[in-house]
Structures are given as structure tokens and as C-alpha cells.
């Protein structure tokens, strides 16, 4: 049971990839974990826990999408269907474990980031300021800001790789 919770970060990532709405993705995963607890006996020991729970998350995402985007065009549904297939094909238990490792490393890297970068990251990812608002706040254009955020992400990514290479972080 604990391993279902262990994969929570990877599952939220999956739900976010499908729903593209953070609140909905978190809700879908939480709903799924409730279902997991009810259907626990149906899990076949020895098979992939991550794949089993992800399947449950998938149904919750479909439900959430039906509720939130009743008017979504077919094109949109086709697009998220493709994304779902990509997860099906390329994301496995190892991917879920990697997400866990990277989270610990990212936490350390965020702490180490310079104040300016950290502020931007927090405003954007935690406080969910839209580009326009963040741009107005920083006095930059939206596109310059976007490039800046991507650069910060890249440097955080480098930092994560270094952390993982030296074994600085465990899950």
C-alpha cells in the first residue's frame, strides 16, 4: 500500500500531463488513492504497482476531464490521448523511482539557487502568477521572462544531475 503513495509524485506528473491543470491533477490522484485503498485486494503481487495505480489515475483523469471540459473539442481529446499513449509506452516503475530521486535533488537545488531565480520560480510555480503578471512585476517582456524561466529550469536540471551523480540525495 505504501508503494502506491510512494509513486504519488510520478502519478501527479502523469495526471498533469493529461489534464494540464494542477488542481485537477492533484484531485484526480487523491481520488485514485482512495480507489486504490478500496481495490487493494485486486492488485496482483509481482506486477507493476505504478502501472496499476496509473491505470486508476487514468480513469479519474478521464472523469475529471469530462466534468471540467465538457465542451473540449475532439482535437483536444486526441492530443491528450496521444500523451496518454506516450506515458503508457515510455513511463514505467523506473521512471517513477527517478521522479522520486529527482524531487529530493530539486529541493536541494532550489535552496541553493540565487534569490532572484528562486523568487521567480516561486512566483511562477507556487503562486501560479501568469506570465503577463510576472512580466509586469519584473519589468520585462513576457517572452524575455519566458526565456529566463526556461534558463533557470535548465540550470536547476544541471544541478540535479550533479547532485545525483555524486549521490548527494536519496529518495
Amino acid at each position: 500500500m505504501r508503494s502506491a503513495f510512494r509513486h504519488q509524485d510520478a502519478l501527479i506528473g502523469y495526471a498533469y500531463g493529461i489534464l494540464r491543470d494542477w488542481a485537477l491533477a492533484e484531485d484526480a490522484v487523491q481520488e485514485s488513492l482512495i480507489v486504490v485503498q478500496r481495490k487493494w485486494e485486486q492488485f496482483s503481487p509481482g506486477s507493476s504497482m505504478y502501472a496499476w495505480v496509473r491505470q486508476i489515475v487514468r480513469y479519474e483523469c478521464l472523469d475529471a476531464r469530462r466534468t471540467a471540459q465538457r465542451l473540449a473539442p475532439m482535437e483536444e481529446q486526441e492530443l491528450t490521448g496521444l500523451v496518454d499513449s506516450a506515458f503508457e509506452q515510455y513511463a514505467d516503475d523506473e521512471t517513477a523511482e527517478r521522479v522520486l530521486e529527482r524531487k529530493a535533488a530539486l529541493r536541494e537545488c532550489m535552496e541553493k539557487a540565487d534569490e532572484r531565480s528562486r523568487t521567480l520560480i516561486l512566483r511562477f510555480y507556487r503562486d501560479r502568477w501568469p506570465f503577463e503578471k510576472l512580466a509586469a512585476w519584473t519589468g520585462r517582456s513576457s517572452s524575455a521572462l519566458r526565456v529566463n524561466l526556461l534558463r533557470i529550469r535548465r540550470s536547476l536540471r544541471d544541478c540535479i544531475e550533479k547532485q545525483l551523480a555524486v549521490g548527494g540525495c536519496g529518495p
Partner: protein
Amino acid sequence: MNDERLFDNYLRKELTADETKEFKHRLGEEPAFAREFLAYVHETGLMVQVASRMERVAPEAGSTATPRAEQTSWVGAGRWRRDGRRSSRVLWPAAAACLLAAAGGALIFGLRNGPEDRLLAGELRATRQGQTISMKAGERIETGDRIEAASVATCLLRDGSVVKLDRGSRVVLRPRARGERGHLALEEGRMFLRAAKARGKLVISGEKEEVEILGTVFGVAKMEAGLSVSVFRGQVVVRSTAGEIEIGNGQSAQAAGSAKPTLTDTDPNQALLWARETTEFRHRPLGEVADWIEANSSLTFDIPQPLRAEIVSITISEDPMRTVVRSVCLACGLKCDIAGTVVTIRR
């Protein structure tokens, strides 16, 4: 186009027609692209999660611009800052929003232990038999634990009810008295609860006040004196030593010690300010936005069919829902009247 920008545009629902075509093609045909995309999505998820656990930062030194959100956030709701600390003024009466559907009936947690109370998401510090324990998602909360939310935390109670605690809120899981299926004592902060349909009473108590849940979605906040309760859906009984009051959909009440509970004019929709964060609608039909607001508040819309197709972009964040509705109308150049909980939109 740079792949990262393409990924980003997908996640922000901003892909153009050409980009959509390219994205779809490459996702289906290029394994390396698909893997990179998956890594990017997970990374974005981690950025949100890790950033959400970090403390609020002060504006940069030398920055003269004051962020708009900091000027306006919690206005009306005010007095409660998202960092979980109380201001010197009165606490914001918590209200409710739709969090997630609790599973009906009792849940089975593990095969051996039977139903248990568990932390679903977020971080808690629990004081158990004099020791402080940091709890992570999936861990069991025991009766008698005094839990403090280190971040916004969601717990699943043994009866299937879901409780969301704001950062800094403190709750004790009291032993269940006869006829009770759950009893939480709110010592500090605020909580949002979606009660499962089950037998027995579910009780939230203050020092001398208590709230008995009759099956509902609602919020409770600890005030300097007493409790403040707002019902999003369903009904609750608010009780003090001097009497009780039953409140339902869209109503709020306050109970303090020996005074009789009274109705207040707090709008439960404002619970969205903390229980649900920002939701963005980019180039979406007005009807979809209205449906979402209806599903997450007590407001209902009256919009002529052709207007439902009107495309709007709106970010629903820390503003009261009524302000959001007015913004939608303004963005579309529409006339918007809000009477009670009914929103009438005309051209």
C-alpha cells in the same frame, strides 16, 4: 521551435494549430521526443510540488514594484495570509469549496489494520506521546495525535471523509465518543471538509463550541473566540453552550463560547481562495468557464446559448468568485448582474 517551448505550450494549452500538428507527429514518431516530453512534464510537476512546500519569499531588495497579488490577495477574505500566520486582526472565516469526492462508505486501509486515518497529501507534524514526528503522504494518523500542517495537507479519515488543512493549522484527533465516527478538535487555523455519507456523527470542536456534520462540504476556522463555519453544500449544526443553529448551502455562522451561534454574511465561495489555487481558462468558451464556476461554487448562471460559445481567457485565483465573474463579463464586453447566487449574463 525549441522543444521545451513546445512542451511548455502544450502544458499551458497554448499550442497553435501548426504546433499541435508538430507536437502530435513527433510524439507519435520520435521516441526521444516523447521521452523528453515525459521528463519535462514530471519536472514541471516537481517544480510545482517543491515550490509549493517552500516558504513565501520577501520581495527582492531594490524592487519598487509591489506585486498586484500581494496588494489584493485576501482582500475581503483578508486577515489570513497564505503563509499560515495570523494577522493581529480577526481571522478570516473559512468557507468551503469543492475539493474532491470522498469515497462513499467506510474504506479499507490495508488488509490487516482495518480503516485508518491517513495523510493523503502534503506534510504534517504530529505530536504523539510527547514526540514530534514529521509525516509524509500515506502515513497513518493515530487517535490522540496533535497534527500541525507544515503545508496545505489533505487527510483521509477512516469514514471516507476528506479534510484539507491550511498551512499552520492545528488539529487533535480526539477519541470517538459513543455514536461518533470521527471527532476533530480545531485548535488553530482553518480546515475544509468533505464529509462522507456514513453512519454516526462527525464532529469538529473548538474550546466550547462544536460543529456536527450532517453530510456536507464545508469549512471551519478557529477564531480568537470560537469557531466560524461556512457551508458550501449540505447542512451542519453549529453548537455552543448557549444553543445551536442549523445552516445549509451558502450560509455561514459563528459560535463563541457561551453566546448563541449566529448567522454571518460570509460568502462560502471565498473558500476557493485557499482550498483551490489558481485555475486558468485560456481561450475557452464562456459556457465552460460558467460550468466550472457552477461546479465549484454556489453560483448558477443564466446565459443565452449563443453567448456560451464566446471565447474568453481568465485566471481564477485569489479573488472572490463574484469578482472573477465580473472579470469574465468585462473581458467579453457583456452585461453581468449578480443577484444572490444567480448570475444573469446578457449582451
